[in-house]
């Protein structure tokens, strides 16, 4: 990856979103081999560039989100148990040639892949397969954005204060893989949503661009023309725009040295349908 892109991604990662959210249940739930989860209480969120959304946004139902991204050690266990996901065996349709390139060997992490650092260079197919293996799934875009918006305990309601903190994060960014779980924790007890890696979401391909969509109300119109700010929930939510652009540029087999993932689960008794 070139330095410009790396810089850009780091900037994206280090700018925290800011959306007022409801308070959340912070009861941790331990789930076998899927890591530690916390409940993200239902909340309202306005998706970017979607026409016909009510003023208050759409309700994102409550769900469980892993407190940390999946680490190299976690992912190694998955590869050991699922040989088809070894570097030498994964088909190109499922992961590009940079898959797990930071690992020393097929089943050896090495100095560039500390066990406690987030696993990166994994494709969407790989991330999805891991999630399925631990009885979980990837979070949706809306779920991820909801969880990543709740930092009132740290930053209060002042976006300027948040921005200052974000710039401080940016200045402290490092190319060295960092252990997960040490950054700022969200109100819900979720670590590393901003500042460590970019994360796959299940519906990253929900961004419809360039000559697509239904013709009359294409999101392109909203994205590239003057309608952008009018359609967007919060024009000051710069980081959300950046994430939107990144997701729209990804393909399912792509891998990046700054792109990892965390898993999510449905609440045991939750209704899965979102309010329209």
């Amino acid at each position, binding site marked *: *990856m*070139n330095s*410009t*892109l790396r810089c*850009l991604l780091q900037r994206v990662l280090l700018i925290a979103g800011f959306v007022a959210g409801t308070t959340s249940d912070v009861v941790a739930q331990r789930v076998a081999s899927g890591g530690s989860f916390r409940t993200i209480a239902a909340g309202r969120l306005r998706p970017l560039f*979607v*026409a*016909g*959304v*009510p003023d208050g946004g*759409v309700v994102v139902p409550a769900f469980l989100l892993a407190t940390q991204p999946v680490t190299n050690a976690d992912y190694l266990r998955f590869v050991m148990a699922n040989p088809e996901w070894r570097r030498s065996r994964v*088909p*190109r*349709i*499922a992961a*590009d*040639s*940079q898959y797990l390139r930071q690992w020393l060997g097929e089943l050896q992490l090495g100095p560039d892949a500390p066990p406690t650092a987030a696993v990166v260079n994994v494709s*969407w*197919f790989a991330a*999805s397969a891991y999630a399925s293996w631990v009885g979980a799934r990837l979070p949706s875009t809306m779920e991820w954005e909801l969880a990543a918006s709740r930092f009132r305990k740290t930053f209060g309601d002042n976006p300027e204060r948040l921005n200052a903190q974000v710039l401080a994060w940016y200045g402290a960014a490092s190319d060295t893989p960092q252990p997960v779980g040490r950054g700022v924790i969200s109100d819900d007890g979720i670590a590393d949503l901003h500042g460590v890696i970019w994360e796959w979401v*299940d*519906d990253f*391909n*929900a*961004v*419809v*661009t*360039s*000559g*697509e*969509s*239904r*013709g*009359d109300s*294409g*999101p392109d119109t909203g*994205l*590239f*023309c*003057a309608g*952008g*700010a009018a359609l967007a929930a919060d*024009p000051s939510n*710069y980081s959300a*725009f*950046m994430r*939107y*652009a*990144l997701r*729209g*540029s*990804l*393909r*399912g*087999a*792509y*891998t*990046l040295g700054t792109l990892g993932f965390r898993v999510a689960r449905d609440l045991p008794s939750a209704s899965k349908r979102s309010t*329209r």
Partner: protein
Amino acid sequence: MTFRSVITRSTAALLLGAMAVANGAAQTPTTRSELPATSVYRMKGSWTSQDGAVHTLASLRGEVTVLAMVYTSCTMTCPLITSEMQAVQRALSPELKKHVRFVLASFDPARDSLPALRAHVSKMGLDANWLVMRASPVDVRTLAVVLGVSYRQLPSGDFDHSNIITVLDANGVVRFQSPRIPADRPALVAAVIAAARSPGS
């Protein structure tokens, strides 16, 4: 154009360019019995067609396939996508027509029940070489991702989606994709003919 939209567009272009470079992947040699490393049919998926038959993606192996993702209650571009595919079918020789399969895969498992799929076949006048299929949301997402098809459901229940038509060879390797409507019909027909002439990949 606003400042933010400039940033967003240049960001997207930069990322696309960088990733296109990063994605220069090499194909690995394959045996006749194993699907190629780049075959779409390596992906999991269980699809049910209008007649109730269940198809894994791997079971689609063996015939050149022209495939698009639509939803049958769509009144905008989906009928146009189907019409473009019908035009491709008409352009094929009688002999070739027997060996090319046309597939419509639905975005919308909630509304595209088997009766809805059958109604669509009848309404659009699709012949026996067409499969109109539905699957679970997970399998829909997987197929869309592997084909590079973007989609999302709108608050109205309709979908924004890519208008991509894909030509797959007998092994499920993508030979050509027409990215938009109106489709590049001559290129689609040429890709179907080429895939039928050289099935191995």
